[in-house]
């Protein structure tokens, strides 16, 4: 077994364990929520409707949280055992991509599985898939591709975040989240301001909202951006001295 395989073994073992636990807890939570109105009969407000869960959104949050929170300890641990930064990088990319694909597949399965289960509990399933709302004409294959690309992009971003946080420390974390908050809050202002229209146009182009087959084009954009993020991460980490 070469060193990359050994790192893959270690990282994937942890990744699978944590992903499994997350999906398990999530499923139990959802089932519990479904059960509550049945248990407490009086709690039913409105009809018996169940909305689509769009699992890929919480999956995205999990991806970000998992990669960012384990970046430093994993890097230090693997470096301690004599792995080169290149080995660690390759192993991390593969593990994170595998995680994204795994979660994408689980997302897809959940879209097929939730309706029958909800019905079994006595709910009428309504609610739209967010993707159908945003993009036109989507087959399940294209949705799978989109979700996979989206999660891969998120994973690549998380790795870049992890690398910057490792390098710059708390300063980075504070600056990032302040900037994020500001951007989030100022989006409506930007949207209203015709002078800053180019930002809206850029977002539009990136997500290909208008285009037919937008869902596929957006996926390509996601992958390209993910490659850029990954390259930046590699450049940052290849001569990164160990930080305790």
């Amino acid at each position, binding site marked *: 077994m070469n*060193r990359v395989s*050994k790192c893959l*073994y*270690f990282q994937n073992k942890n990744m699978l364990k944590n992903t499994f636990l997350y999906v398990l807890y999530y499923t139990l939570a959802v089932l519990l929520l479904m059960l509550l109105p049945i248990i407490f009969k009086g709690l039913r407000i409105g009809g018996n409707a169940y909305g689509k869960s769009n699992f890929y959104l919480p999956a995205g949050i999990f991806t970000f949280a998992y990669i960012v929170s384990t970046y430093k*300890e*994993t890097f*230090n*641990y693997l*470096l*301690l*055992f*004599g*792995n*080169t*930064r*290149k*080995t660690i990088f390759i192993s991390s990319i593969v593990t994170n991509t595998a995680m994204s694909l795994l979660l994408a597949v689980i997302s897809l399965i959940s879209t097929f599985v939730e309706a029958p289960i909800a019905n079994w509990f006595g709910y009428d399933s309504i609610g739209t898939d967010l993707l159908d709302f945003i993009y036109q004409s989507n087959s399940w294959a294209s949705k799978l591709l989109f979700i996979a690309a989206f999660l891969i992009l998120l994973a690549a971003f998380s790795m870049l975040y992890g690398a910057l946080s490792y390098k710059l420390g708390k300063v980075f974390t504070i600056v990032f989240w302040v900037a994020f908050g500001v951007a989030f809050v100022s989006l409506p202002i930007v949207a209203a301001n015709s002078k800053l229209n180019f930002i809206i146009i850029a977002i539009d182009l990136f997500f290909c909202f208008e285009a037919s087959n937008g869902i596929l084009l957006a996926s390509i954009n996601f992958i390209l951006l993910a490659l850029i993020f990954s390259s930046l991460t590699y450049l940052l980490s*290849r*001569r990164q*001295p*160990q930080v*305790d």
Partner: protein
Amino acid sequence: MSEVLLETNMLTKNYGDVYALKDFTVKLDCNKIYGFLGRNGAGKTTFLNIVSSRIFATDGEVKIFGQDSFNSQEILSKICYMPEKNLFIGTMRVVEILKSAALFYNGFDMQYAQELCTKFGLQTKKKYKALSRGYESILRIVIGLASRASLTIFDEPVLGLDAAVRDMFYRELIEDYTNHPRSFIISTHLIEESANMFEEVVIIKEGSLVKQLPVDELKEMARYVSGKAASVDEAVAGLNLIHSETVGATKICAIFDRLDDEKLKKLTRADLDLSPIPVQKLFIYLTSNN
């Protein structure tokens, strides 16, 4: 003929104006136990961190087993470096960490590791974050010894351990070294009790190499010369003086030099007293500013 284990040439590490290592040039042979001795902050850890690719030198070069070690997976696979800092993952159990060691070090002897855990009383089911400082050191010792890595490096391995456990470590080190010869570099400031382990010592002071020499020369070259000031001064003229003090009418000088018969004769006079220098004191003199 010994192969070359490690060679550095003008190795330098500075943070702005502060030099952690300066023009450090050293050559070590394979299959010896080396002691790296120096005060706190002398640069031992910086040196070891560079050698093991944890941090990067500002200048100079390092070759391990004849090759440039920077980011060389082939070379790094032959090195087991157990640093002073805690870099294991806190939520992992000791046994899982040992399994990682078995995964990453080709020659890792799990049975030996388990025996060591029993000998030292390290509970393998415990989580790393639950270990006391002493047991953290013991875990590093277990991994370092059981790794059987061609170059095994310990940075301050006995921190937080009481005398009895330190003694156990020295015994295990010698026993495993004799049964499975390999290269060891051990950095420590506990010179007195660990000197017997070493074949050669490298003494570091303020980022520079002070001396590299076989351990018995530490004694053969060191003497206290005491007596009347005038006599002492005459006798030690031309010798490497590392310390001197005056107590009343008596002057005591510490010399550190190659003492051939001729030089020794000059020192063996009726009005002079020659005595050995305790290793601890010798170490202080060699690493202080005189």
